[in-house]
């Protein structure tokens, strides 16, 4: 199943955990906010993506079914 990362920019306050937990896909911009990849999350990273979603203190990250 194709999964995609999405961030709620209103909830996001730039904690930066997601970039620490999923550095293969997420980088932080110069203000500390996450830049997400456009495409689907590779299968091998699904577990790490789920952890990043669960650990976000602001509950701003989500793993959705790719549209």
């Amino acid at each position: 199943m194709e999964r995609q990362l999405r961030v709620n920019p209103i909830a996001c306050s730039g904690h930066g955990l997601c970039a620490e937990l999923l550095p293969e896909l997420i980088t932080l911009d110069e203000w500390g906010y996450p830049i997400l990849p456009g495409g689907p999350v590779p299968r091998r990273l699904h577990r790490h993506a789920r952890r990043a979603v669960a650990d976000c203190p602001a509950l701003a990250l989500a793993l959705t079914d790719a549209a």
Partner: protein
Amino acid sequence: MTAITQSTALWYASRATGVVSLLLLTLVVILGIAVNRQGRLPGLPAFAVTGLHRSVSLLSVLFIAAHVATAVMDPYVSIRAAAVVIPFVSAYQPFWLGLGAVALDLIAALILTSLARARMPRRAWRGIHWLAYAAWPVALIHGVGASPDLRSGGLRLLAIGCAMAVGGAGLWRLTQRAREMPRAERAAAVLAVNEPPGSPARPSFVPDREAR
């Protein structure tokens, strides 16, 4: 072992696990405030702070469970199992133990919602999590009232230390929230720092023309 010695062992176990629970809960609250304020522990990444907050809170659940179980099992005092979660129904010290039940209920709400936090609305989870600021003082008051342990000697200093730590951190957290830049002013604040010096409020940037 005689019945009284067994009872004494359970009683001591309950008191000891109670003190440790209080210490762990103090640590949980302070770590929680650190997470919220994006504080870092030296040499550790941000996810370690959230990880510690979660681990210590689960550890405190274990110690609270032991604290409660030993108290119920102890035959010397009559505390029925229901009194663990229903406040003020215990035969022994109904008020002080009732406070313990209140604290336990609040902590149970915090733990259960946090385990399910990805599956519930964000705002609901946050609202319930604020109850942590109620759970901790109730737990402390339960500890001070239910047994004389925290009222004298080294343990009293410990209790005072924990109260100061949580009180100080909590107060700091609230003042930070009060001083947070309101949303409506954020862009203006960034602009103020990034505008060229001497920019008028309503700029008209046509430059001085070179001599023609």
